[in-house]
């Protein structure tokens, strides 16, 4: 998934059109977008929206309130029967949090007649403690398929000033990414919060992609096109990847041990990267020959 779009769980108009903006995933939000006195209403609205609208154009993620709040159990009760692709727990700071969540999911899935493990987890890590425990969180349960950095709460926890260029979250980005890749799962970058700064968004998304993130969340539908573009292989990358794989094939055919392209040795990391680019290209249905 390149893009994950936040949709406030208490906004019927946005829920109605949640899946038209081209996001690879929608995050229906029961947490920060919803004030405490509206939690129950949002839960009902999200449940009815998912049942009635049957979102087909993308993965379904539901963000729930943190463990230890009075909303956590009610959220799970309401959300599991909808069989979302992912549940996004919030303020995740330890492996124990994930284990506790996974146990609850085991029970609720059984109650709802869902296959065990059907619902995956994308923990939202947004505290200093959570960042330090990122690898343990990633490895806490097989349901965990990705880590997601929430930079707003995290920088507040650090006593840092949140900036557009994001120097204050560089460590967290690196830490999350390394933990996720070490656990062989995906990593998602924090949203860019200025909805009117298209240039800033493009820079921020490119940085995240170059660092190695799988994709990025968005708080505005208007950010989706740019994020998708940033996390899709470019025409030049696809071309290069094709050349790499062709050169390797050619080398094999000629029985060569070492193969070079454009004057540079092609070693295993280059080949692996080329394969990933081609896989992404096929998954996204990009031909790489138009535009």
């Amino acid at each position: 998934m390149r893009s994950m779009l936040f949709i406030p769980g208490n906004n019927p108009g946005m829920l109605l059109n949640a899946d038209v903006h081209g996001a690879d995933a929608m995050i229906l939000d029961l947490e920060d977008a919803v004030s405490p006195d509206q939690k129950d209403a949002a839960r009902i609205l999200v449940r009815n929206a998912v049942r009635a609208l049957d979102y087909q154009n993308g993965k379904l993620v539901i963000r729930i309130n943190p463990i230890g709040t009075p909303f956590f159990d009610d959220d799970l009760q309401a959300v599991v029967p909808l069989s979302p692709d992912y549940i996004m727990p919030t303020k995740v700071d330890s492996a124990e949090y994930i284990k506790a969540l996974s146990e609850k999911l085991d029970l609720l899935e059984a109650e709802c007649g869902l296959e065990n493990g059907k619902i995956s987890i994308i923990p939202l890590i947004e505290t200093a403690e959570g960042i330090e425990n990122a690898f343990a969180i990633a490895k806490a349960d097989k349901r965990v398929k990705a880590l997601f950095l929430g930079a707003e709460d995290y920088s507040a926890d650090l006593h840092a000033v949140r900036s557009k260029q994001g120097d204050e979250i560089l460590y967290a980005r690196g830490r999350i990414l390394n933990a996720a890749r070490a656990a062989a799962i995906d990593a998602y970058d924090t949203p860019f919060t200025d909805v009117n700064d298209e240039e800033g968004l493009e820079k921020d998304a490119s940085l995240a992609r170059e660092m190695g993130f799988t994709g990025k969340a968005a708080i505005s539908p208007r950010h989706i096109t740019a994020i998708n573009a940033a996390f899709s292989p470019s025409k030049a990358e696809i071309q290069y990847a094709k050349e790499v794989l062709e050169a390797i094939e050619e080398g094999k055919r000629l029985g060569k041990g070492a193969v070079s392209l454009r004057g540079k040795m092609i070693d295993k990391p280059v080949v692996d990267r080329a394969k990933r680019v081609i896989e992404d290209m096929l998954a996204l249905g990009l031909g790489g020959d138009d535009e």
Partner: protein
Amino acid sequence: MNKRAESLGAAMKKAGIQNGMTISFHHHLRNGDYVMNMVLDEAAKMGIKDLTVQASSVFDVHQPIIEHIRNGVVTGIETNYMGAKVGKAISEGILDRPVRFRSHGGRPDAIEKGRVKIDIAFVAAPCADASGNANGIYGPSACGSLGYACADAKYAKTTIVVTDYLAEYPLSPASIEETDVDYVVVVDKIGDAAGIVSGTTQITRDPVGLKIAETAARVIEHSGYLADGFSFQTGAGGASLAVTKYLKPIMKRKNVSGSFGLGGITGYMVDMLREGYFKKLMDVQCFDLKAVESLKTNPDHIEVSASRYASPGVISACVDHLDAVILGATQIDTDFNVNVHTDSNGYIMGGSGGHSDTAAGAKLSIIVAPLFRARLPIIVDRALCVSTPGNTVDVLVTQRGIAVNPAREALRKRLTDACLPVYDIGELKEMAEKITGKPDDIELGERIAAEVEYRDGSIIDKIRCVK
């Protein structure tokens, strides 16, 4: 000769205003217009009854007309567009004689061919000289083009220019020429600048509108019409204007040099002219101050009359040269007939304007509309009013997919080949109804509130009063 009249009332007396006359107005001052209300108030004071108001548009600012209808001062309205406030009163049956709707092209044709006879034309002029040469580019009420007033000034028995900014003779340029003007009146103010044009026209920030606009731009890209010499018209509102935002980078990438932009002109189209995307703008109506300024200063920004813009009765008109037009809809039916006259409950809240003219003229007419508004689906079995016939509509673009008129099979194939989300219009209708349900039919009254005259002069539909 001295054409000056000391007051509006004096000018009306000189023009011989009488019961039963047809008096005309243009709508360049839009929702800031004072002139129609001033004239009707004056007529009421003079005890005049039974007037037919022949106005290119009636806006919400013209609400006082409702009182004049109640008092018998006005007994008929002919117009191309009617805002929701007056429209509601008309739909409730306040007027005995049905309103006659025309289009921006059909109206000047009816005037020029004599199907409409105007006794007195009142031309609100932001700037005029004492002989009646007038334009819309100078003065505190500057509105830009005066294109909709041209036929009125030329063909009315008597033409009165009403201005609040008197210039030295001879005023140049003259959108209205002295040869057609009988009297000139100077008043304090012809309008409220804030309601005439906006400072800048903002592109919508509604993500659904933007999604629709982006898809519409891709429809143009893959339609086969986007090539050097491309000409384009779009409206100022909602998703329509936003199409230009997405079309611009496509034109740049494909290195397309456009020919002209047409219609109501916004600052956005002015930018495209300046940046070389189009060579000319043909302007029948300015929507914002940037457009007014450009019309004043840029020789490639050309003022055109309503007749040259869109009349079906002239040898050729601008719309006949148009490649693509983006249009709105309150309803579209499964035969692609479009309603822009009434809302989903049958209340009058609009009118064709140039809708049916540009749809008929353009090689590619694209309707942009959300799949539903509030709880009501936009695609229906039968539009409450046929404003623009389906055989002139090519593509519908919604946020969940597009539909191509079955008569345009080659176009459908092009768009399908480009991997655009093409559906049958019935499938889009089902998609909407799956969410909204199918609303009950609206029950309307028996009385006719308005008749819609198509641009060729035939009656294309009748709008019934609401119950």
